[in-house]
């Protein structure tokens, strides 16, 4: 692995931060002991299963559950009639806001089914087999309706309408006619016409990408227990148990204090586990049956009813002067939202030109409902789709102008002091440094052979801060416990322990990090938005610093000196007046052992809303070889440079970068939702929904550029999302240079590439 590039030295000498200790959750995970969502078993527990729609769009005429209920072993059957009929209300859930009315109708269809796989009823029974049988006994009469899945078809005049009440917002006036377009987004600056008029070269291009799933290995799973006194407990695998609590409480009109959510270990989320599917159903079934209920999705259900991210169509018109200066850009983004409004097109609008300092632009986004599962957040939601169009357009421009693609990006790069297209003025960003890291990387000097091509693309993500609560306590032997409310999906327990160890001056193995349940710690929003190391990490550092002050006070009292006469170093209090401390320094263990005499337990809590998350930039270069006869793409090498602020645990930062690239390669080459003419997903399994396997990927070289974020105690920026932004474009551009054909529709599967090569040869 490459050494981190350090454009600036931070000056502080760090002992733990920046090292690569073994993760504290590692042994449990690799030995199979870690308890994931499906691993809990409670006495008297029932199995819950969901009856799903066989149609892509239909009105529910009637549901008859009597036969199912009569089956021995069936303890409860539910439909949307068993859930409160909620008014439209927005609920902020970390990265994505939810409309509670829509969410309720998504977890259990109300009146209409809007996609194949939409939940219509659920049962709880004493065994899997009985639950399956009960599902077959539920009789539902549907009136099928025409459906629409393609985003442009859904926008067209005369398309089947999903929501009769929905009119397009953001048009400036309120239309009277129902539409599948939920919202039009707009961002603009300068004078577009003048910008294009001053351009020497203009490209106009269109790129589309298919719906792809987050593809986490662990299917959604939970256990819910609804006690007779109204207190409930939910064990579930999610990216944020406080959000699960909030959504369950809101959807079922429960008091927050009556819902305790205990986080299970999580087997991947990538944004897709920031909402609820099963938990409210399991609670209703538990209440109705009087038993705890476990619900576990199959992989097929995961594909049909959760995730994915939007299919999209992006058109870009971009003009530049002969020297490469981009004078104007017009971007149009059409995003499939699935059954309910709320695609990530807003973020796509804001990120699309975020790497470019362009005086004149107009960006339009369309949030469009379709008869497919409601999209969920997926790593940098919206940004990869937008970058596909914009980065490919920049490549086309650079090619026309005969300018090197890295130089083209440098020429137009945003720098500190430039106002981002989405509003704020950039500070402490490391985009130019990241471009520089790629430019000087040996990868760029490797010559290419026949049928090989190189693609370069950049990407941006905001990164967020947000609300976190952290508890740090010192045990009687001087070891520490760090409790957070942030589920660990990418090695955050290790990073939290490291930051606490750094401040306390002890070894990282002395710190035990845990993820506490909703009743054991204050509110913390989801692990999402690349926020946890930044925001929760900030709270950890502040809490540890508070403890150090407390420890110094205790030492000062012991020695009978003023607190300013005590320094904290290497995990011990040292007295500046040596004569007052004849026995020398007071270690953390000594102070902990005598805590009862100096004020009692040593513990503190910090709750904050972290501000100042530094935006992240990445620049990727990839080389591919295309077999012109089969259309098969081999990714030969891949280098990803990213400004990470400061890598707290470099191995896990590299892991994030490599993981994002791997998912991006899948998105670019083979992953896609394939729908039948009846609107049924035809490849709802990992055999035909092709995520890359290990042998599909080269070593992904992760280059960490460290331009510190002054808002974080150690300079950290979010790192988890940026790396999935450039790969779609990087691969598309590399394939173009390998084949001589520009392909505009992802995925670039072998059959499409062969067809494009054949068409080009005619």
């Amino acid at each position, binding site marked *: 692995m490459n050494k981190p590039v350090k454009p600036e030295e931070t000056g502080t000498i760090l002992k733990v931060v920046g090292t690569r200790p073994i993760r504290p959750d590692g042994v449990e995970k690799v030995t199979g002991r870690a308890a994931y969502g499906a691993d809990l078993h409670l006495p008297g527990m029932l199995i819950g299963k969901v009856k799903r729609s066989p149609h892509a769009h239909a009105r529910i005429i009637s549901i008859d559950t009597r036969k199912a209920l009569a089956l021995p072993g069936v303890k409860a059957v539910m439909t949307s009639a068993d859930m409160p009929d909620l008014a439209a209300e927005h609920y902020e859930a970390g990265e994505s806001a939810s409309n509670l009315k829509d969410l309720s109708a998504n977890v259990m269809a109300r009146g209409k089914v809007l996609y194949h796989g939409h939940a219509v009823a659920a049962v709880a029974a004493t065994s899997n087999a009985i639950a399956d049988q009960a599902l077959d006994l539920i009789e539902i009469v549907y009136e099928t309706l025409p459906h629409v899945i393609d985003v442009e078809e859904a926008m067209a005049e005369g398309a089947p309408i999903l929501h009769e009440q929905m009119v397009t917002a953001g048009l400036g006036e309120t239309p009277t006619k129902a539409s599948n377009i939920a919202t039009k987004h707009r961002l603009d600056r300068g004078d577009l016409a003048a910008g294009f008029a001053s351009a020497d070269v203009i490209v106009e291009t269109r790129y589309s990408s298919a719906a792809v799933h987050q593809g986490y290995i662990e299917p959604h799973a939970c256990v819910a227990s609804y006690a007779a006194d109204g207190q409930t407990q939910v064990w579930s695998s999610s990216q944020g148990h406080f959000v699960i609590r909030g959504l369950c409480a809101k959807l079922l009109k429960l008091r927050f204090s009556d819902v305790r959510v205990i986080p299970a270990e999580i087997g991947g989320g990538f944004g897709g586990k920031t909402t609820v599917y099963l938990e409210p159903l399991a609670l209703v079934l538990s209440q109705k049956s009087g038993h705890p209920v476990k619900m576990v999705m199959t992989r097929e259900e995961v594909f049909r009813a959760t995730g994915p991210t939007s299919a999209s169509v992006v058109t870009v018109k971009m003009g530049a002067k002969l020297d490469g200066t981009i004078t104007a850009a017009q971007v149009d983004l059409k995003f499939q939202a699935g059954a309910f409004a709320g695609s990530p097109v807003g973020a796509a609008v804001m990120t699309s030109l975020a790497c470019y300092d362009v005086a004149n632009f107009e960006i339009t986004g369309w949030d469009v409902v379709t008869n497919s599962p409601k999209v969920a957040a997926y790593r940098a939601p919206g940004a990869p789709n937008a970058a596909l169009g914009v980065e490919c357009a920049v490549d086309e421009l650079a090619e026309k102008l005969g300018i090197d693609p890295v130089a083209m990006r440098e020429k137009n790069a945003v720098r500190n002091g430039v106002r981002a297209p989405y509003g704020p003025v950039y500070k402490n960003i490391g985009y130019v440094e990241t471009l520089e890291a790629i430019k000087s990387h040996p990868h760029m000097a490797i010559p290419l052979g026949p049928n090989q091509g190189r693609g370069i693309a950049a990407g941006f993500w905001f990164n967020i801060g947000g609300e976190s609560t952290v508890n740090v306590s010192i045990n009687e032997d001087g070891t520490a416990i760090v409790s957070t409310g942030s589920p660990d999906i990418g090695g955050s327990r290790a990073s939290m322990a490291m930051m606490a160890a750094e401040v306390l001056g002890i070894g990282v193995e002395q710190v035990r990090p845990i993820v506490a349940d909703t009743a054991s710690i204050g509110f913390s929003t989801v692990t999402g938005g690349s926020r946890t190391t930044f925001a929760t990490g900030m709270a950890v550092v502040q809490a540890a610093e508070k403890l150090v002050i407390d420890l110094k006070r205790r030492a000062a009292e012991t020695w009978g000196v003023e607190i300013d006469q005590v320094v904290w170093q290497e995990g011990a209090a040292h007295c500046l007046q040596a004569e007052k401390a004849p026995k020398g320094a007071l270690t953390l263990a000594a102070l902990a052992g005598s805590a009862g005499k100096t004020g009692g337990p040593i513990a503190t809590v910090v709750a904050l809303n972290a501000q100042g998350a530094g935006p992240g930039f990445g620049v990727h270069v990839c080389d591919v070889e295309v077999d012109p*006869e089969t259309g098969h793409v081999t990714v030969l090498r891949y280098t990803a440079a990213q400004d990470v602020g400061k890598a707290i645990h470099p191995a896990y930062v590299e892991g994030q970068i490599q993981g994002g690239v791997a998912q991006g390669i899948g998105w670019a080459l083979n992953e896609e939702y*394939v729908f039948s003419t009846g609107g049924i997903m035809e490849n709802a399994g990992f055999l*035909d929904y*092709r995520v890359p396997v290990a042998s599909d990927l080269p070593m992904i070289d992760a280059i960490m550029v460290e331009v510190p974020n002054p808002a974080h105690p150690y300079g950290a920026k979010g790192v988890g999302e940026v790396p999935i932004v450039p790969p779609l474009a990087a691969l598309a551009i590399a394939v173009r240079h390998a084949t001589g054909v520009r392909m505009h529709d992802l995925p670039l599967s072998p*059959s499409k590439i*062969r*067809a494009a090569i054949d068409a080009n040869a005619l």
Partner: protein
Amino acid sequence: MAQLSYLSPSSVDEAVKALSGTSARALSGGTDLLVQVRSGRAKPDQIVDLKRIPGLIGIRAENGGFVIGSATCGAMLSEHPTLSKIWPGVVEAANLIGSTQVQGRASLAGNLCNASPAADSVPALIAARATCVIAGPAGTREAAVETIVTGPGKTSLTAGEFIIAFKLPPRGPKASDAYLRMIPRTEMDIAVAGAGVSLALDADGVCLSAHVALGAVAPTALLVADAGQALIGTRLEEVALTRMAEAVRAACQPISDKRGTADYRTKIAAVLAHRAAVIAWNRAKEQA
């Protein structure tokens, strides 16, 4: 609720009897059958595990050829000291099935009798002119591999019948085979098209016999006689290969589905047959 019983007979007769039942299914490695039972696609009332029957696992040389027990797993094929030297195409085809874990279970009989048009070992076995030894209520019989599968999910085996062994014929000098498949990924995938080629050459590298078989381009694997014929008497010169490729394309009757268009499958089958022929020829020339 339907009950599923499991039987593990230790003789052919016992197995024949057990398999004569209405919805009994033979089990070798289980890598197809158990997946199908779990998903509800197969609903047998009895599973008859054949692996304890003597001879069903193992490879022996016989009359200059090989007899491979029908339940022998892929890993055993590749570990055999001489099989892959003489039939590298058959072994590489069988070894493409699944992953290391799957290779410890998956058998040739299961791959054939699952009757998927895309089964990887089948075109290689057909090109190799392999036969099956079939046990049944009327005793044992032998049949060419290409006669077993009659359509997707369908075989010509009758009630109580099962395959006990595959026979690979004796091989002269300067003979070899090869199998190639196209998948969008690099492993853990299902063939969009596959091609097996088996050749025997004279001392000058001229084809004395040639057999070309295709997978995933028709309801069953195809033996394309014209394609083999195009190579006989040639040293695989470009004209010969072009004629073979034409014969391959003419024989293809693929469907368009989520795994590839009919047009793509046809083109790829020709590409794979061409490449496999060249590999088989080069291997044959190196044989003593």
